[in-house]
Protein backbone atom coordinates (compact mmCIF):
# COMPACT_ATOMS: atom_id res chain seq x y z
CA UNK A 1 0.00 0.00 0.00
CA UNK A 2 1.51 3.30 -0.99
CA UNK A 3 1.67 6.01 1.58
CA UNK A 4 -0.27 9.25 1.40
CA UNK A 5 2.21 12.10 1.29
CA UNK A 6 1.94 15.69 2.34
CA UNK A 7 4.57 18.35 2.70
CA UNK A 8 4.95 19.64 6.27
CA UNK A 9 6.14 22.96 4.83
CA UNK A 10 2.82 23.46 3.09
CA UNK A 11 1.03 22.48 6.28
CA UNK A 12 3.00 25.22 8.02
CA UNK A 13 2.06 27.84 5.43
CA UNK A 14 -1.61 26.91 5.54
CA UNK A 15 -1.70 26.93 9.31
CA UNK A 16 -0.06 30.35 9.42
CA UNK A 17 -2.85 31.70 7.21
CA UNK A 18 -5.50 30.24 9.53
CA UNK A 19 -3.75 31.58 12.61
CA UNK A 20 -3.33 34.97 10.96
CA UNK A 21 -7.08 35.28 10.83
CA UNK A 22 -7.49 34.33 14.46
CA UNK A 23 -4.61 36.39 15.82
CA UNK A 24 -4.33 39.91 14.41
CA UNK A 25 -1.06 40.30 16.34
CA UNK A 26 0.64 37.43 14.54
CA UNK A 27 3.49 38.56 12.28
CA UNK A 28 5.76 36.57 9.97
CA UNK A 29 9.33 37.24 8.85
CA UNK A 30 11.36 35.50 6.19
CA UNK A 31 14.81 35.84 4.65
CA UNK A 32 14.45 35.48 0.87
CA UNK A 33 13.13 31.94 1.10
CA UNK A 34 9.39 32.49 1.44
CA UNK A 35 8.63 30.27 -1.56
CA UNK A 36 10.49 27.40 0.06
CA UNK A 37 9.39 27.87 3.66
CA UNK A 38 5.82 28.57 2.42
CA UNK A 39 5.47 31.75 4.43
CA UNK A 40 4.56 33.20 1.03
CA UNK A 41 1.03 31.93 1.70
CA UNK A 42 0.80 34.23 4.69
CA UNK A 43 2.53 37.04 2.79
CA UNK A 44 -0.14 36.93 0.10
CA UNK A 45 -3.02 36.97 2.56
CA UNK A 46 -1.62 39.41 5.09
CA UNK A 47 0.97 41.53 3.27
CA UNK A 48 1.02 44.16 6.04
CA UNK A 49 2.01 41.61 8.66
CA UNK A 50 4.67 39.93 6.56
CA UNK A 51 8.21 41.24 6.58
CA UNK A 52 10.60 40.24 3.83
CA UNK A 53 14.01 40.75 5.42
CA UNK A 54 16.18 39.76 2.46
CA UNK A 55 19.18 37.50 2.91
CA UNK A 56 19.87 38.90 6.37
CA UNK A 57 19.03 36.27 8.96
CA UNK A 58 20.66 37.90 11.98
CA UNK A 59 18.69 41.04 11.33
CA UNK A 60 15.53 38.97 10.94
CA UNK A 61 15.92 37.25 14.30
CA UNK A 62 16.55 40.40 16.32
CA UNK A 63 13.75 42.21 14.49
CA UNK A 64 11.38 39.37 15.32
CA UNK A 65 12.33 39.82 18.97
CA UNK A 66 11.68 43.55 18.80
CA UNK A 67 8.25 42.93 17.33
CA UNK A 68 7.54 40.37 20.05
CA UNK A 69 8.49 42.87 22.76
CA UNK A 70 5.53 44.96 21.56
CA UNK A 71 3.02 42.15 21.92
CA UNK A 72 3.34 40.48 18.53
CA UNK A 73 3.55 36.74 18.06
CA UNK A 74 6.57 36.59 15.75
CA UNK A 75 7.16 33.67 13.43
CA UNK A 76 10.54 33.76 11.69
CA UNK A 77 11.39 31.25 8.98
CA UNK A 78 14.28 30.17 6.83
CA UNK A 79 16.26 26.95 6.29
CA UNK A 80 17.34 25.23 9.52
CA UNK A 81 21.01 25.86 8.80
CA UNK A 82 20.51 29.62 8.56
CA UNK A 83 17.85 29.76 11.30
CA UNK A 84 20.10 28.50 14.08
CA UNK A 85 23.88 28.33 13.77
CA UNK A 86 24.19 31.47 11.72
CA UNK A 87 22.19 33.54 14.16
CA UNK A 88 23.02 31.85 17.42
CA UNK A 89 23.93 34.92 19.44
CA UNK A 90 20.86 36.81 18.21
CA UNK A 91 18.69 33.90 19.32
CA UNK A 92 20.52 33.56 22.61
CA UNK A 93 20.31 37.22 23.63
CA UNK A 94 17.16 38.54 22.01
CA UNK A 95 14.95 35.46 22.19
CA UNK A 96 16.10 32.96 24.82
CA UNK A 97 17.65 35.26 27.41
CA UNK A 98 14.89 37.81 26.90
CA UNK A 99 12.24 35.09 27.00
CA UNK A 100 10.67 36.61 23.90
CA UNK A 101 7.57 35.32 22.20
CA UNK A 102 9.40 34.40 19.02
CA UNK A 103 8.76 31.20 17.12
CA UNK A 104 11.50 30.06 14.80
CA UNK A 105 10.08 27.68 12.27
CA UNK A 106 12.84 26.14 10.19
CA UNK A 107 12.50 24.02 7.08
CA UNK A 108 15.09 21.92 5.22
CA UNK A 109 16.42 20.32 8.40
CA UNK A 110 18.48 17.14 8.26
CA UNK A 111 20.18 15.25 5.44
CA UNK A 112 16.99 14.79 3.42
CA UNK A 113 17.86 18.20 1.95
CA UNK A 114 19.80 15.90 -0.37
CA UNK A 115 21.72 17.22 -3.33
CA UNK A 116 22.53 20.71 -2.05
CA UNK A 117 25.11 18.92 0.10
CA UNK A 118 26.50 19.08 3.61
CA UNK A 119 26.63 22.89 3.63
CA UNK A 120 22.84 22.88 3.64
CA UNK A 121 22.15 19.70 5.62
CA UNK A 122 21.56 20.94 9.15
CA UNK A 123 22.26 18.16 11.65
CA UNK A 124 23.19 20.28 14.67
CA UNK A 125 20.18 22.56 15.08
CA UNK A 126 18.34 20.52 17.71
CA UNK A 127 21.50 20.42 19.81
CA UNK A 128 22.06 24.15 19.44
CA UNK A 129 18.52 25.05 20.38
CA UNK A 130 18.24 22.47 23.14
CA UNK A 131 21.02 23.97 25.24
CA UNK A 132 19.38 27.37 25.32
CA UNK A 133 17.45 28.06 28.53
CA UNK A 134 13.75 28.87 27.92
CA UNK A 135 13.79 27.37 24.43
CA UNK A 136 11.19 24.75 23.51
CA UNK A 137 12.26 22.44 20.67
CA UNK A 138 10.01 20.51 18.28
CA UNK A 139 10.55 18.17 15.37
CA UNK A 140 7.09 17.29 14.00
CA UNK A 141 6.81 13.99 12.17
CA UNK A 142 4.22 14.71 9.48
CA UNK A 143 1.98 17.43 8.06
CA UNK A 144 -0.84 16.80 10.55
CA UNK A 145 1.45 17.06 13.52
CA UNK A 146 3.04 20.15 12.02
CA UNK A 147 -0.38 21.83 11.94
CA UNK A 148 -1.08 21.03 15.60
CA UNK A 149 2.37 22.09 16.73
CA UNK A 150 2.28 25.38 14.86
CA UNK A 151 -1.05 26.07 16.56
CA UNK A 152 0.49 25.33 19.95
CA UNK A 153 3.45 27.54 19.15
CA UNK A 154 1.15 30.46 18.46
CA UNK A 155 -0.98 30.02 21.57
CA UNK A 156 1.63 29.30 24.22
CA UNK A 157 3.94 32.12 25.22
CA UNK A 158 7.71 31.82 24.90
CA UNK A 159 10.72 31.08 22.72
CA UNK A 160 10.20 28.04 20.51
CA UNK A 161 12.02 26.31 17.69
CA UNK A 162 10.55 23.80 15.26
CA UNK A 163 12.19 22.07 12.33
CA UNK A 164 10.79 20.07 9.46
CA UNK A 165 12.44 18.55 6.42
CA UNK A 166 12.39 19.62 2.81
CA UNK A 167 10.59 16.66 1.30
CA UNK A 168 6.98 15.59 1.37
CA UNK A 169 6.49 13.09 4.16
CA UNK A 170 4.09 10.17 4.57
CA UNK A 171 1.04 11.08 6.62
CA UNK A 172 1.21 9.25 9.91
CA UNK A 173 -1.87 10.87 11.39
CA UNK A 174 -5.20 11.77 9.82
CA UNK A 175 -5.85 15.39 9.11
CA UNK A 176 -7.98 15.95 12.19
CA UNK A 177 -6.05 13.66 14.53
CA UNK A 178 -3.93 14.85 17.42
CA UNK A 179 -6.51 17.35 18.65
CA UNK A 180 -5.15 16.99 22.14
CA UNK A 181 -1.44 16.86 21.43
CA UNK A 182 0.51 18.43 24.27
CA UNK A 183 3.86 20.16 24.31
CA UNK A 184 6.30 17.84 26.06
CA UNK A 185 4.10 14.74 25.84
CA UNK A 186 5.38 12.03 23.53
CA UNK A 187 2.97 9.88 21.53
CA UNK A 188 2.98 6.09 21.57
CA UNK A 189 2.23 5.74 17.87
CA UNK A 190 2.40 1.92 17.92
CA UNK A 191 2.73 -0.36 20.89
CA UNK A 192 5.08 -3.29 21.39
CA UNK A 193 7.02 -4.76 24.29
CA UNK A 194 10.36 -6.03 22.97
CA UNK A 195 12.07 -2.80 22.07
CA UNK A 196 11.20 0.90 22.09
CA UNK A 197 12.14 3.08 19.17
CA UNK A 198 12.00 6.69 20.19
CA UNK A 199 12.03 8.87 17.10
CA UNK A 200 11.36 12.42 16.05
CA UNK A 201 10.62 14.24 12.81
CA UNK A 202 11.13 12.32 9.59
CA UNK A 203 12.51 9.32 11.47
CA UNK A 204 9.12 8.42 12.96
CA UNK A 205 7.95 7.06 9.64
CA UNK A 206 11.21 5.12 9.28
CA UNK A 207 10.65 3.74 12.77
CA UNK A 208 7.20 2.54 11.72
CA UNK A 209 8.75 0.78 8.72
CA UNK A 210 11.35 -0.72 11.03
CA UNK A 211 8.57 -2.03 13.23
CA UNK A 212 7.09 -3.86 10.23
CA UNK A 213 10.45 -5.39 9.36
CA UNK A 214 10.96 -6.53 12.94
CA UNK A 215 7.49 -7.97 13.28
CA UNK A 216 8.29 -10.37 10.42
CA UNK A 217 10.94 -11.80 12.71
CA UNK A 218 8.63 -11.94 15.68
CA UNK A 219 10.02 -8.85 17.38
CA UNK A 220 7.46 -6.43 18.70
CA UNK A 221 8.64 -2.85 18.58
CA UNK A 222 7.04 0.12 20.22
CA UNK A 223 7.28 3.39 18.31
CA UNK A 224 7.34 6.64 20.25
CA UNK A 225 6.86 9.89 18.38
CA UNK A 226 8.84 12.35 20.48
CA UNK A 227 7.71 15.54 18.74
CA UNK A 228 8.90 17.73 21.61
CA UNK A 229 12.60 17.26 22.27
CA UNK A 230 12.63 19.89 24.95
CA UNK A 231 11.04 19.70 27.44
CA UNK A 232 11.32 15.96 26.83
CA UNK A 233 8.76 13.48 28.13
CA UNK A 234 10.86 11.95 30.89
CA UNK A 235 8.07 9.81 32.26
CA UNK A 236 7.46 8.17 28.92
CA UNK A 237 11.17 7.47 28.41
CA UNK A 238 11.40 5.81 31.83
CA UNK A 239 8.22 3.86 31.25
CA UNK A 240 9.62 2.50 27.99
CA UNK A 241 12.90 1.64 29.70
CA UNK A 242 11.00 -0.37 32.24
CA UNK A 243 8.54 -2.09 29.90
CA UNK A 244 10.77 -3.02 26.96
CA UNK A 245 14.12 -4.76 27.00
CA UNK A 246 15.93 -2.33 24.80
CA UNK A 247 15.72 1.16 23.45
CA UNK A 248 16.78 2.96 20.30
CA UNK A 249 16.57 6.61 19.41
CA UNK A 250 16.32 7.71 15.78
CA UNK A 251 16.77 11.23 14.49
CA UNK A 252 17.84 13.00 11.31
CA UNK A 253 20.46 14.83 13.32
CA UNK A 254 23.85 14.30 14.86
CA UNK A 255 23.84 11.67 17.60
CA UNK A 256 25.51 14.32 19.72
CA UNK A 257 23.25 16.79 21.44
CA UNK A 258 19.87 15.87 19.98
CA UNK A 259 17.11 13.45 20.85
CA UNK A 260 19.51 10.58 21.51
CA UNK A 261 21.48 12.67 23.96
CA UNK A 262 18.34 13.90 25.69
CA UNK A 263 17.10 10.34 26.18
CA UNK A 264 20.45 8.98 27.32
CA UNK A 265 20.76 11.76 29.91
CA UNK A 266 17.49 10.60 31.45
CA UNK A 267 18.49 6.95 31.41
CA UNK A 268 21.92 7.62 32.89
CA UNK A 269 20.67 9.80 35.70
CA UNK A 270 18.03 7.25 36.67
CA UNK A 271 20.62 4.49 36.58
CA UNK A 272 18.63 2.59 33.94
CA UNK A 273 20.67 -0.23 32.53
CA UNK A 274 18.50 -0.98 29.52
CA UNK A 275 20.25 -1.76 26.26
CA UNK A 276 20.48 1.44 24.33
CA UNK A 277 21.67 2.82 20.96
CA UNK A 278 21.47 6.23 19.31
CA UNK A 279 20.73 6.18 15.58
CA UNK A 280 21.55 9.39 13.75
CA UNK A 281 24.49 10.99 12.00
CA UNK A 282 27.67 9.73 13.63
CA UNK A 283 29.61 12.96 14.17
CA UNK A 284 30.39 13.70 10.55
CA UNK A 285 29.36 15.88 7.64
CA UNK A 286 27.47 13.99 4.95
CA UNK A 287 27.37 14.80 1.24
CA UNK A 288 25.25 15.50 -1.83
CA UNK A 289 22.93 12.74 -3.02
CA UNK A 290 19.38 11.46 -3.21
CA UNK A 291 17.85 11.40 0.28
CA UNK A 292 17.10 7.68 0.17
CA UNK A 293 20.68 6.89 -0.82
CA UNK A 294 22.00 9.13 1.93
CA UNK A 295 19.77 7.45 4.52
CA UNK A 296 21.16 4.10 3.42
CA UNK A 297 24.80 5.21 3.36
CA UNK A 298 24.66 6.98 6.71
CA UNK A 299 22.77 4.24 8.51
CA UNK A 300 19.30 5.70 8.90
CA UNK A 301 17.22 3.40 6.70
CA UNK A 302 14.60 1.10 8.23
CA UNK A 303 16.89 -1.78 7.33
CA UNK A 304 19.72 -0.29 9.40
CA UNK A 305 17.52 0.49 12.36
CA UNK A 306 16.08 -3.04 12.30
CA UNK A 307 19.57 -4.52 12.11
CA UNK A 308 20.71 -2.49 15.08
CA UNK A 309 17.56 -3.46 17.00
CA UNK A 310 18.26 -7.16 16.44
CA UNK A 311 21.85 -6.80 17.53
CA UNK A 312 20.72 -5.05 20.69
CA UNK A 313 18.22 -7.79 21.52
CA UNK A 314 20.73 -10.60 21.00
Amino acid at each position, binding site marked *: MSKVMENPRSAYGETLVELGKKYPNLVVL*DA*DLSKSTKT*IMFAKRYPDRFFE*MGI*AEANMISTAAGLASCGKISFASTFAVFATGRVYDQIRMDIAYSNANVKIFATHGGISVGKD*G*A*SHQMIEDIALMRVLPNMVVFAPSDATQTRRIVERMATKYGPMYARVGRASAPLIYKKDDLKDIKIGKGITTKDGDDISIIACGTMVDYALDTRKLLSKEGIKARVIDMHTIKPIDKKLVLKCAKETNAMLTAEEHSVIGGLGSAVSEILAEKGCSCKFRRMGIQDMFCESGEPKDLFAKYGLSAYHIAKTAKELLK
Partner: protein
Amino acid sequence: MLSTGWGITLKLHNDELIKKLNLTAVKIRRHIIEMLYKAKSGHPGGSLSAVDAIVTLYFYHMRHNAKKPDDLDRDRFILSKGHAAPTLYAVLAECGYFDVKELKRLREINCMLQGHPVCQHIPGIEASTGSLGHGLSFANGVALAGKLDKKEYNVYVMLGDGETDEGQIWEAAAAASHYKLNNLTGLLDRNFLQIDGNTEDVLRLESVRERWSSFGWNVIEIDGHDIQQIIDALHEADERENQPTMIILITVKGKGVSFMENNVDFHGVPPNELEYKLAIRELDTLQRKLEGI
Protein backbone atom coordinates in the same frame (compact mmCIF):
# COMPACT_ATOMS: atom_id res chain seq x y z
CA MET B 1 42.94 26.48 -25.45
CA LEU B 2 44.26 29.58 -23.78
CA SER B 3 46.95 29.12 -21.25
CA THR B 4 45.93 28.45 -17.70
CA GLY B 5 49.54 28.75 -16.64
CA TRP B 6 51.22 31.86 -15.38
CA GLY B 7 49.96 34.86 -17.31
CA ILE B 8 49.07 34.79 -20.97
CA THR B 9 51.44 32.67 -22.91
CA LEU B 10 49.47 32.80 -26.12
CA LYS B 11 50.26 36.00 -27.94
CA LEU B 12 46.93 36.53 -29.59
CA HIS B 13 45.65 39.46 -31.49
CA ASN B 14 43.08 41.14 -29.25
CA ASP B 15 40.05 40.25 -31.39
CA GLU B 16 41.21 36.65 -31.48
CA LEU B 17 41.55 36.62 -27.72
CA ILE B 18 38.09 38.03 -27.09
CA LYS B 19 36.61 35.55 -29.54
CA LYS B 20 38.35 32.65 -27.81
CA LEU B 21 37.12 33.77 -24.42
CA ASN B 22 33.58 34.22 -25.70
CA LEU B 23 33.67 30.74 -27.20
CA THR B 24 34.98 29.36 -23.91
CA ALA B 25 32.08 31.05 -22.15
CA VAL B 26 29.62 29.29 -24.46
CA LYS B 27 31.32 26.00 -23.72
CA ILE B 28 31.00 26.63 -19.99
CA ARG B 29 27.33 27.57 -20.38
CA ARG B 30 26.75 24.29 -22.20
CA HIS B 31 28.46 22.40 -19.40
CA ILE B 32 26.25 24.17 -16.85
CA ILE B 33 23.05 23.23 -18.66
CA GLU B 34 24.18 19.64 -19.06
CA MET B 35 25.29 19.33 -15.44
CA LEU B 36 22.08 20.71 -14.01
CA TYR B 37 19.91 18.68 -16.34
CA LYS B 38 21.75 15.54 -15.34
CA ALA B 39 21.74 16.40 -11.61
CA LYS B 40 18.05 17.33 -11.77
CA SER B 41 18.75 20.11 -9.29
CA GLY B 42 20.91 23.18 -8.86
CA HIS B 43 20.92 26.85 -9.76
CA PRO B 44 20.95 27.81 -13.46
CA GLY B 45 20.21 31.56 -13.19
CA GLY B 46 23.09 32.71 -11.02
CA SER B 47 25.48 30.20 -12.60
CA LEU B 48 24.87 31.59 -16.08
CA SER B 49 25.15 35.24 -15.08
CA ALA B 50 28.57 34.61 -13.53
CA VAL B 51 30.16 32.84 -16.50
CA ASP B 52 31.89 35.63 -18.42
CA ALA B 53 33.71 37.09 -15.43
CA ILE B 54 34.88 33.72 -14.11
CA VAL B 55 36.01 32.63 -17.57
CA THR B 56 37.99 35.85 -18.01
CA LEU B 57 39.63 35.40 -14.63
CA TYR B 58 40.74 31.81 -15.16
CA PHE B 59 41.47 31.76 -18.90
CA TYR B 60 43.01 35.17 -19.19
CA HIS B 61 43.69 37.16 -16.08
CA MET B 62 44.72 35.09 -13.08
CA ARG B 63 48.12 33.57 -12.51
CA HIS B 64 47.41 29.98 -11.67
CA ASN B 65 48.42 26.50 -12.62
CA ALA B 66 46.08 23.52 -12.58
CA LYS B 67 49.03 21.20 -12.01
CA LYS B 68 49.98 23.10 -8.87
CA PRO B 69 46.72 24.06 -7.18
CA ASP B 70 48.53 24.69 -3.89
CA ASP B 71 51.23 26.95 -5.30
CA LEU B 72 51.78 29.62 -2.68
CA ASP B 73 52.08 32.39 -5.27
CA ARG B 74 48.85 31.69 -7.14
CA ASP B 75 46.13 34.26 -7.50
CA ARG B 76 43.03 33.20 -5.59
CA PHE B 77 39.38 33.20 -6.62
CA ILE B 78 36.66 32.77 -4.03
CA LEU B 79 33.10 32.11 -5.07
CA SER B 80 31.14 33.63 -2.23
CA LYS B 81 27.82 32.97 -4.00
CA GLY B 82 28.48 29.25 -3.71
CA HIS B 83 25.28 28.21 -5.47
CA ALA B 84 27.01 29.14 -8.76
CA ALA B 85 29.30 26.15 -8.16
CA PRO B 86 28.55 24.59 -11.58
CA THR B 87 30.24 27.55 -13.29
CA LEU B 88 33.36 27.26 -11.18
CA TYR B 89 33.47 23.47 -11.50
CA ALA B 90 33.15 23.64 -15.28
CA VAL B 91 35.89 26.29 -15.50
CA LEU B 92 38.21 24.34 -13.20
CA ALA B 93 37.66 21.16 -15.19
CA GLU B 94 38.34 22.91 -18.50
CA CYS B 95 41.52 24.37 -16.97
CA GLY B 96 42.63 20.87 -16.06
CA TYR B 97 42.17 20.84 -12.29
CA PHE B 98 40.20 17.61 -12.62
CA ASP B 99 38.64 15.39 -15.27
CA VAL B 100 35.82 16.97 -17.27
CA LYS B 101 33.97 13.67 -16.82
CA GLU B 102 33.43 14.55 -13.15
CA LEU B 103 31.02 17.31 -14.24
CA LYS B 104 28.43 14.73 -15.21
CA ARG B 105 28.40 13.41 -11.64
CA LEU B 106 27.60 16.73 -10.01
CA ARG B 107 25.55 16.28 -6.84
CA GLU B 108 25.65 12.46 -6.97
CA ILE B 109 26.36 10.39 -3.91
CA ASN B 110 29.96 9.07 -3.62
CA CYS B 111 31.18 11.71 -6.08
CA MET B 112 33.53 14.62 -5.76
CA LEU B 113 31.44 17.55 -6.94
CA GLN B 114 29.18 18.61 -4.08
CA GLY B 115 26.12 20.82 -4.52
CA HIS B 116 28.15 23.71 -3.13
CA PRO B 117 31.96 24.19 -3.22
CA VAL B 118 34.08 22.31 -0.66
CA CYS B 119 37.72 23.24 -0.37
CA GLN B 120 38.88 20.01 1.20
CA HIS B 121 37.91 17.60 -1.54
CA ILE B 122 37.90 19.53 -4.81
CA PRO B 123 41.18 20.68 -6.41
CA GLY B 124 41.17 24.39 -7.14
CA ILE B 125 38.42 25.33 -4.68
CA GLU B 126 39.78 27.91 -2.24
CA ALA B 127 36.85 28.21 0.18
CA SER B 128 33.82 26.17 1.21
CA THR B 129 30.80 28.31 0.43
CA GLY B 130 27.03 27.98 0.08
CA SER B 131 26.01 29.86 3.17
CA LEU B 132 25.92 33.35 1.71
CA GLY B 133 27.78 36.31 3.14
CA HIS B 134 31.07 34.73 4.24
CA GLY B 135 33.23 34.98 1.14
CA LEU B 136 34.33 38.58 1.35
CA SER B 137 35.57 38.17 4.92
CA PHE B 138 37.42 35.01 3.90
CA ALA B 139 38.95 36.85 0.95
CA ASN B 140 40.06 39.63 3.31
CA GLY B 141 41.90 37.01 5.33
CA VAL B 142 43.64 35.67 2.25
CA ALA B 143 44.57 39.22 1.18
CA LEU B 144 45.88 40.09 4.66
CA ALA B 145 48.02 36.94 4.62
CA GLY B 146 49.37 37.97 1.23
CA LYS B 147 50.48 41.31 2.68
CA LEU B 148 51.98 39.68 5.77
CA ASP B 149 53.93 37.20 3.68
CA LYS B 150 54.95 39.86 1.13
CA LYS B 151 53.35 37.89 -1.68
CA GLU B 152 52.44 39.32 -5.05
CA TYR B 153 49.22 37.38 -5.48
CA ASN B 154 45.83 38.98 -5.97
CA VAL B 155 42.55 37.84 -4.48
CA TYR B 156 39.29 37.90 -6.42
CA VAL B 157 35.92 37.25 -4.83
CA MET B 158 32.52 37.05 -6.47
CA LEU B 159 29.40 38.12 -4.60
CA GLY B 160 25.73 37.87 -5.53
CA ASP B 161 23.78 41.10 -5.35
CA GLY B 162 21.12 39.55 -3.10
CA GLU B 163 23.98 38.21 -1.03
CA THR B 164 24.94 41.76 -0.11
CA ASP B 165 21.78 41.92 2.02
CA GLU B 166 23.93 40.15 4.60
CA GLY B 167 25.38 42.34 7.33
CA GLN B 168 28.64 40.41 7.29
CA ILE B 169 29.33 41.69 3.78
CA TRP B 170 29.39 45.24 5.13
CA GLU B 171 31.57 44.31 8.08
CA ALA B 172 33.98 42.87 5.54
CA ALA B 173 33.61 45.89 3.26
CA ALA B 174 34.70 48.13 6.11
CA ALA B 175 37.63 45.91 7.03
CA ALA B 176 38.94 45.65 3.47
CA SER B 177 39.19 49.38 3.02
CA HIS B 178 40.46 49.90 6.57
CA TYR B 179 43.33 47.55 5.86
CA LYS B 180 43.86 49.10 2.40
CA LEU B 181 43.58 45.74 0.69
CA ASN B 182 44.50 46.80 -2.82
CA ASN B 183 45.37 43.17 -3.54
CA LEU B 184 41.65 42.38 -3.25
CA THR B 185 39.08 42.75 -6.02
CA GLY B 186 35.40 42.06 -5.59
CA LEU B 187 33.12 41.14 -8.47
CA LEU B 188 29.48 41.86 -7.79
CA ASP B 189 27.12 39.85 -9.98
CA ARG B 190 24.50 42.56 -10.31
CA ASN B 191 21.67 40.65 -11.96
CA PHE B 192 18.91 42.38 -10.02
CA LEU B 193 17.29 39.11 -8.91
CA GLN B 194 17.45 36.91 -5.83
CA ILE B 195 14.91 34.21 -4.85
CA ASP B 196 11.85 36.06 -3.64
CA GLY B 197 12.04 38.49 -6.55
CA ASN B 198 13.76 41.65 -7.72
CA THR B 199 16.50 42.83 -5.37
CA GLU B 200 14.93 46.27 -5.12
CA ASP B 201 11.58 44.80 -4.03
CA VAL B 202 13.05 42.29 -1.59
CA LEU B 203 15.44 44.68 0.17
CA ARG B 204 16.54 47.78 -1.70
CA LEU B 205 20.24 47.82 -2.61
CA GLU B 206 20.51 51.01 -4.62
CA SER B 207 22.61 52.93 -4.84
CA VAL B 208 25.05 50.06 -5.01
CA ARG B 209 27.82 52.19 -6.44
CA GLU B 210 27.57 54.82 -3.71
CA ARG B 211 27.36 52.20 -0.99
CA TRP B 212 30.66 50.62 -1.94
CA SER B 213 32.42 53.89 -2.52
CA SER B 214 31.18 55.25 0.81
CA PHE B 215 32.80 52.20 2.40
CA GLY B 216 36.09 53.32 0.90
CA TRP B 217 36.22 51.12 -2.18
CA ASN B 218 37.28 51.97 -5.68
CA VAL B 219 34.20 51.17 -7.77
CA ILE B 220 34.05 50.26 -11.46
CA GLU B 221 30.76 49.54 -13.15
CA ILE B 222 30.72 47.56 -16.40
CA ASP B 223 28.67 45.27 -18.62
CA GLY B 224 29.34 41.94 -16.96
CA HIS B 225 28.97 40.03 -20.21
CA ASP B 226 31.44 42.14 -22.19
CA ILE B 227 34.77 40.37 -22.01
CA GLN B 228 36.77 43.39 -23.14
CA GLN B 229 35.25 45.49 -20.36
CA ILE B 230 35.95 42.75 -17.82
CA ILE B 231 39.59 42.55 -18.91
CA ASP B 232 40.02 46.31 -18.68
CA ALA B 233 38.35 46.50 -15.27
CA LEU B 234 40.51 43.70 -13.85
CA HIS B 235 43.67 45.47 -15.03
CA GLU B 236 42.50 48.73 -13.54
CA ALA B 237 41.70 47.01 -10.25
CA ASP B 238 45.13 45.40 -10.04
CA GLU B 239 46.85 48.75 -10.54
CA ARG B 240 45.00 50.41 -7.70
CA GLU B 241 46.99 51.47 -4.67
CA ASN B 242 45.73 51.74 -1.08
CA GLN B 243 42.19 50.60 -1.84
CA PRO B 244 40.21 47.48 -2.68
CA THR B 245 38.18 47.58 -5.90
CA MET B 246 34.61 46.44 -6.44
CA ILE B 247 33.73 45.70 -10.03
CA ILE B 248 29.98 45.94 -10.43
CA LEU B 249 29.12 43.52 -13.20
CA ILE B 250 25.78 44.49 -14.67
CA THR B 251 24.51 41.08 -15.71
CA VAL B 252 21.45 39.16 -16.78
CA LYS B 253 20.39 36.25 -14.59
CA GLY B 254 20.16 33.16 -16.82
CA LYS B 255 22.33 34.82 -19.52
CA GLY B 256 22.64 32.87 -22.76
CA VAL B 257 19.40 30.89 -22.57
CA SER B 258 16.52 33.11 -23.67
CA PHE B 259 13.78 31.65 -21.49
CA MET B 260 15.98 31.66 -18.40
CA GLU B 261 17.05 35.27 -18.84
CA ASN B 262 15.69 37.59 -16.15
CA ASN B 263 13.43 34.76 -15.05
CA VAL B 264 13.40 34.34 -11.28
CA ASP B 265 11.78 30.91 -11.66
CA PHE B 266 15.12 29.58 -12.90
CA HIS B 267 17.01 30.61 -9.77
CA GLY B 268 17.03 27.12 -8.31
CA VAL B 269 15.16 24.92 -10.76
CA PRO B 270 17.00 22.84 -13.39
CA PRO B 271 15.81 22.56 -16.99
CA ASN B 272 13.41 19.75 -17.87
CA GLU B 273 14.01 17.65 -20.97
CA LEU B 274 12.41 20.07 -23.41
CA GLU B 275 14.05 23.08 -21.82
CA TYR B 276 17.36 21.26 -21.88
CA LYS B 277 17.11 20.62 -25.61
CA LEU B 278 16.04 24.17 -26.35
CA ALA B 279 18.87 25.58 -24.24
CA ILE B 280 21.51 23.46 -25.95
CA ARG B 281 20.14 24.42 -29.35
CA GLU B 282 20.35 28.11 -28.45
CA LEU B 283 23.92 27.72 -27.23
CA ASP B 284 24.87 25.86 -30.41
CA THR B 285 23.47 28.71 -32.46
CA LEU B 286 25.37 31.20 -30.35
CA GLN B 287 28.58 29.26 -30.88
CA ARG B 288 28.13 29.17 -34.65
CA LYS B 289 27.49 32.88 -34.66
CA LEU B 290 30.69 33.53 -32.72
CA GLU B 291 32.64 31.28 -35.03
CA GLY B 292 31.24 33.23 -37.94
CA ILE B 293 29.73 30.14 -39.54
